């Protein structure tokens, strides 16, 4: 399977995501922001970092990059996309996902490990789970406080589109939301970093299960 990783100016978890894909035994493909080309990949990860320095608002500038045109088409056509951390912020800014990520309620950057529950197995990025499973995942962000307006939030909950929920909320997110998906369920945003726990040499590979799920959906 070919999995693309977008690289914006200021992305800094791009190499970590590429490395995790390689460790899964799949083919990582770098997708440079200035090229409007997804190079025929089967799935895309929009990685974490500080695209354009997070200046103005996280994700606000990256959303206009050339690579985003084909990425939006890919998402609308049902292609699996996972936005991690800054990638989640980019996907919200691009309206591929609902809602927005506000500054952490305590106004500090938070780097920690938190307990998260997988709320639904019905997305390409959670297909390898039973719903309700717990995971411990690293977080590292300054704007991870998920917000969606009343009706949007109600719909997310009703339609089972809250994909991950914090068991210990590190940032003040509404309804403890750590990740959501779009209506088509193929685009998922998650604040914690699965790629940081995809190697037993670093103590845990719990995150690999998220990345590998996309292969379940693809019948690999």
């Amino acid at each position, binding site marked *: 399977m070919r999995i693309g990783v977008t690289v914006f100016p200021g992305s800094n978890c791009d190499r970590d995501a590429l490395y995790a894909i390689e460790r899964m035994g799949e083919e990582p493909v770098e997708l440079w922001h200035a090229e409007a080309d997804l190079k025929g990949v089967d799935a895309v990860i929009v990685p974490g970092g500080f695209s354009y320095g997070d200046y103005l608002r996280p994700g606000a500038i990256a959303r206009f990059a050339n690579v985003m045109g084909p990425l939006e088409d890919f998402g609308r056509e049902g292609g699996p996309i996972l936005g991690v951390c800054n990638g989640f912020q980019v996907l919200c800014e691009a309206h591929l996902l609902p809602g927005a990520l506000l500054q952490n309620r305590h106004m500090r950057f938070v780097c920690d490990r938190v307990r998260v529950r997988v709320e639904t197995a019905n997305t390409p990025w959670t297909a390898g789970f039973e719903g309700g499973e717990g995971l411990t995942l690293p977080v590292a962000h300054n704007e991870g406080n998920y*917000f969606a307006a009343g009706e949007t939030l109600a719909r997310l909950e009703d339609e089972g589109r809250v994909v991950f929920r914090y068991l210990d909320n590190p940032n003040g997110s509404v309804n403890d939301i750590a990740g959501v998906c779009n209506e088509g369920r193929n685009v998922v945003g998650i604040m914690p970093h699965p790629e940081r726990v995809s190697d037993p040499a670093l103590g845990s590979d719990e995150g690999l299960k998220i990345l590998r799920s996309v292969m379940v959906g693809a019948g690999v």
Partner: protein
Amino acid sequence: MPETLKIRVLVRPKEGILDPQGEAVRGALPALGFEGVRTVHIGRLIEMEVESADEVDAMCRRLLSNPTIEEYEWEVVS
């Protein structure tokens, strides 16, 4: 070179959106001896020199603010 216009854009959190910075400032004021401040809200100030004002509104809507959580106003200053 064409003349330029000075534009001022104000972006603020929509009503009801969490504004922890504003909260923190308001909370800190009494300890500094500043009484009588009822509310504080913190937003963004963007000042630009542009060749034409035609696209300013589109820029505000699409880039400078996020309509899900923010509102904006802009004016030509000079």
